[in-house]
């Protein structure tokens, strides 16, 4: 019985071998790809770091030229932040979250695959800049005006902006997917307070990404448009402002730090209780800490801009928030210590790395508190002290937990135990090397060495310190090398690992290793935070198919969708199987980015058109199986399939995507309002926008919403098209010139933004009409009309806000 079931499930869920594996969409496959690729970028970033350190070892060193040095530190930062830290943590989550919450896969398998390809192609695009000799050199935060066309005329910033934006698609996509998966597909009985803390951390992180990445995406788009077409968003001489870039960048950039760090704390909170053999102390406090860190992190961004001439009182607000964030961070550290204190810690390798993390991270946190003080920051700003601080926080706060996590979960993936001595050697090399690199660097900064200088003169007292840092840097590299060798050796020669090798309590360890592609032969019922400690037979019973969806006749990928808080089974989602569409769609999207980079816009348009076609095909192939419309899930219960539900997973995902989109739009509105407050003339003289045409357009568009509500799809589409045409006519007849002034540029940008949304809404409605699922009688296909209606009404609301922003400010504002 159970063997037949497992064979059947494997046939339905597996990723095919050979080249066809590229069509695989299973979360284990995609998650491992993310982790592996992320690690490769880590090594690339590491090599760049060694170049930087080598150049700085002696005063007046000539190993690298000025330009090469700039490229090395820019690419080092970019690789580590955008192509290593965020994606590899998402890889961990994509791989682990379904296993921890008792699910068989994530909710949008094709989207995870698409996200992976975008990430990979974005990285390749960025690093190909090295091979054409035009790498980005303006630092990982790409400040304007240095990165604008007059000061960097080569393609470096374009490579950066397009590569990052391409890869960003993947970050937002997997964040949405993880959030919906965690909220809607937990195993029955896994209420919110029974979720593993790693899952909590990922939920919070995913929601942060939804709100943090759009400002950067917007900034990237605006800067690329400024560079390519001369629209002056950041050009002070034409009504723009360079500080706008800093605001947009750091509004993303500070939460970014926490969305790297929070998953790492999740890893630590998974490892500590296992080796203390005690449940985590202060579960509630840790959840509190995660949630409040997420919020506070959005009030910190100006602490990167203390030196930009913002009023002191405003800086004090941000200083206070920056200090306050130490409270939740401290709560977590004390909770870990308390757990270890209570238990009988087993000093195994993952725990060793965790202790290294706690030591380094606490030091980094303390220098963070120092830098949060405005007067101290003014002294240390742009010195090596900041470099030391940020490496303590990020290397200590993220890389050590990452290595701990890799060792901890490796037996689950490979079915082999890790080594006893090699892993410890790697730890001590990395730990000592790291501290030798960055502890002296605090002093280097305090005695005055600025960051980002490619060389320095003799006799300033910086030589010994720099040499020590370089030696430490190479020691760290040796440590990472030892880690790699150790991993390869244990994969090849490690002893076979039994199931649940560490005696952990969370659900992922109930799975046999190596992991079967369907994770769970039946979806278990959860009654506890550490289900494996409570019921030793749970793993056996799950794999025998005693719980939900253990039907041996299964022929497609099925999974339970449960309610958000209490996790009661609600309906069954049918997941798509392996398909080439995500890869194809990502390649076409890549054509678009490549076309923009090379300024061959017909090619970009072609890529956009083909990608849109691929997405339509994607949607057409999904969510439509014939009868039966309900399935037995076991335990004498029968549930409907997801496409008969108004609140399908697709609806939740769309809602979150729209939250991200609303943030993007809010950033655009912020850009408009910000420039209004700083620009001497807004709008510039002799610019009057007529409001009658746009008002008519708005009225038509608003009516289309009503038509859609009445399910008159044809009428709604017609109204929207006419409304859009009226707005375009109004814009064309207004004396605006996009390149003359930032005001003109932003008005046009806002309306193009709104029109693009309208076009997508029309496309979706046409899709639903073509499928015939708009008729009220088709009760079995309520998901697609619900998603379309959500998008449509949102678009109309956004249109109305755009109208108010453009026509309401400044005429309504005070003089």
């Amino acid at each position, binding site marked *: 019985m159970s063997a037949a079931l497992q064979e059947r499930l494997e046939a339905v869920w597996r990723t095919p071998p050979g080249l066809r594996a590229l069509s695989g969409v299973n979360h284990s496959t995609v998650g491992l790809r993310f982790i592996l690729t992320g690690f490769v970028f880590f090594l690339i970033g590491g090599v760049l770091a060694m170049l930087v350190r080598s150049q700085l070892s002696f005063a007046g060193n000539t190993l690298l030229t000025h330009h090469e040095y700039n490229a090395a530190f820019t690419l080092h930062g970019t690789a580590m932040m955008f192509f290593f830290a965020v994606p590899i943590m998402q890889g961990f989550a994509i791989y682990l979250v379904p296993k921890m919450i008792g699910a068989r896969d994530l909710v949008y398998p094709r989207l995870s695959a698409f996200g992976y390809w975008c990430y990979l192609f974005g990285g390749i695009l960025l690093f190909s800049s090295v091979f054409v000799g035009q790498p980005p050199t303006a630092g990982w935060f790409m400040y304007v005006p240095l990165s604008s066309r007059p000061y960097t005329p080569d393609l470096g910033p374009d490579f950066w902006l397009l590569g990052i934006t391409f890869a960003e698609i993947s970050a937002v996509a997997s964040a949405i997917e993880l959030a919906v998966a965690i909220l809607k597909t937990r195993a029955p009985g896994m*209420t*919110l*307070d029974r979720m593993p803390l790693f899952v909590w951390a990922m939920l919070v992180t995913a929601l942060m990404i939804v709100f943090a990445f759009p400002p950067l995406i917007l900034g990237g788009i605006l800067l690329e448009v400024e560079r390519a077409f001369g629209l002056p968003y950041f050009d002070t001489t034409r009504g723009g402002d360079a500080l706008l870039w800093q605001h947009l960048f750091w509004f993303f950039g500070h939460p970014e730090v926490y969305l790297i760090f929070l998953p790492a704390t999740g890893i630590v909170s998974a490892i500590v209780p296992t080796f203390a053999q005690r449940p985590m102390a202060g579960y*509630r*406090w840790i*959840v*509190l800490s995660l*949630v*409040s860190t*997420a*919020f*506070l992190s*959005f*009030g910190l961004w100006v602490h990167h801009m203390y030196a930009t*001439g*913002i*009023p*002191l*009182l*405003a800086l*004090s*607000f941000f*200083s*206070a*928030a920056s*200090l*306050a964030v130490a*409270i*939740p961070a401290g709560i977590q550290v004390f909770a870990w210590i308390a757990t270890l204190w209570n238990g009988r810690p087993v000093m195994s390798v993952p725990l060793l790395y965790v202790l290294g993390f706690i030591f380094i991270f606490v030091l980094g946190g303390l220098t963070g508190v120092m830098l949060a003080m405005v007067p101290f920051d003014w002294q240390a700003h742009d010195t090596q002290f900041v470099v030391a601080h940020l490496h303590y926080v990020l290397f200590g706060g993220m890389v050590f937990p990452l290595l701990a996590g890799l060792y901890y979960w490796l037996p689950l993936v490979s079915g082999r135990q890790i080594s006893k001595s090699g892993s410890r050697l790697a730890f001590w090399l990395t730990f000592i090397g790291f501290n030798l690199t960055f502890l002296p660097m605090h002093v280097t900064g305090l005695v005055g060495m600025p960051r980002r200088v490619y060389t320095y003169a003799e006799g300033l007292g910086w030589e010994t310190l720099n040499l020590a840092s370089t030696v430490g840097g190479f020691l760290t590299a040796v440590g990472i090398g030892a880690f790699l060798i150790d991993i390869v050796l244990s994969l090849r020669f490690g002893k076979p690992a039994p199931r649940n090798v560490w005696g952990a309590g969370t659900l992922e360890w109930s799975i046999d290793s190596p992991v079967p592609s369907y994770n769970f032969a039946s979806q278990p019922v959860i009654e506890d935070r550490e289900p494996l400690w409570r019921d030793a037979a749970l793993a056996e019973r799950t794999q025998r198919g005693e719980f939900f969806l253990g039907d041996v006749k299964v022929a497609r990928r099925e999974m339970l969708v449960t309610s958000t*808080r*209490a996790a009661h089974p609600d309906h069954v989602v049918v997941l798509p199987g392996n398909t080439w569409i995500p890869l194809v769609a990502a390649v076409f999207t890549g054509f678009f980015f490549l076309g923009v980079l090379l300024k061959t816009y017909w090619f970009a348009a072609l890529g956009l058109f083909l990608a849109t076609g691929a997405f339509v095909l994607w949607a057409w192939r999904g969510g439509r199986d014939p009868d039966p419309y309900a399935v037995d899930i076991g335990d004498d219960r029968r549930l409907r399939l997801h496409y008969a539900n108004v609140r399908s997973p697709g609806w939740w995902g769309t809602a979150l995507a729209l939250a991200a989109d609303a943030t993007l739009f809010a950033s655009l509105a912020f850009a408009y309002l910000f420039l209004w*407050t*700083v620009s001497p003339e807004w709008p510039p003289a002799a610019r009057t926008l007529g409001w009658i045409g746009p008002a008519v357009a708005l009225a038509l568009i608003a009516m289309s919403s009503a038509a859609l509500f009445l399910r008159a799809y044809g009428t709604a589409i017609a109204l929207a098209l006419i409304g859009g045409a009226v707005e375009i006519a109004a814009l064309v007849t207004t004396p605006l010139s996009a390149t003359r002034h930032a005001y003109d540029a932003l008005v046009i940008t806002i309306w193009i933004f709104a029109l693009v949304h309208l076009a997508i809404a029309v496309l979706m409605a046409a899709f639903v009409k073509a499928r015939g699922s708009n008729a009220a009688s088709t009760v079995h296909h309520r998901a697609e009309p619900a998603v379309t209606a959500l998008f449509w009404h949102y678009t109309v609301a956004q249109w109305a806000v755009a109208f108010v922003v453009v026509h309401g400010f400044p005429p309504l504002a*005070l003089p």
Partner: protein
Amino acid sequence: VKLIAAPAVWLAHFTAVYVLLSLACRSGASESGTSGLVQGGVAIATALAVVLLVAIGWRAYSRSRAEPRDTDGFIERVTLLAAGLSALATLWVAYPAFVLPACAV
């Protein structure tokens, strides 16, 4: 959703005082006039936020006492803690408005 109410109040308060200050300093009024405006505005916003947070905390507390066996008690208790932390952070952020001049750079 309840869980994020308290930190959301903090974030709203934070945004409100920052926007108020930025606009006040752009208005071109005299330093003493702006300081009064900013301090008054911050005081009102802070009072409002703290009242809201106390209300959120009190509601969560009484609910968690009412149904101690229910699993939903978890959400209520975390909400209570979040309200406390958010109130602390709100007061802390508002404090500099009363010791520093408004628009000095």
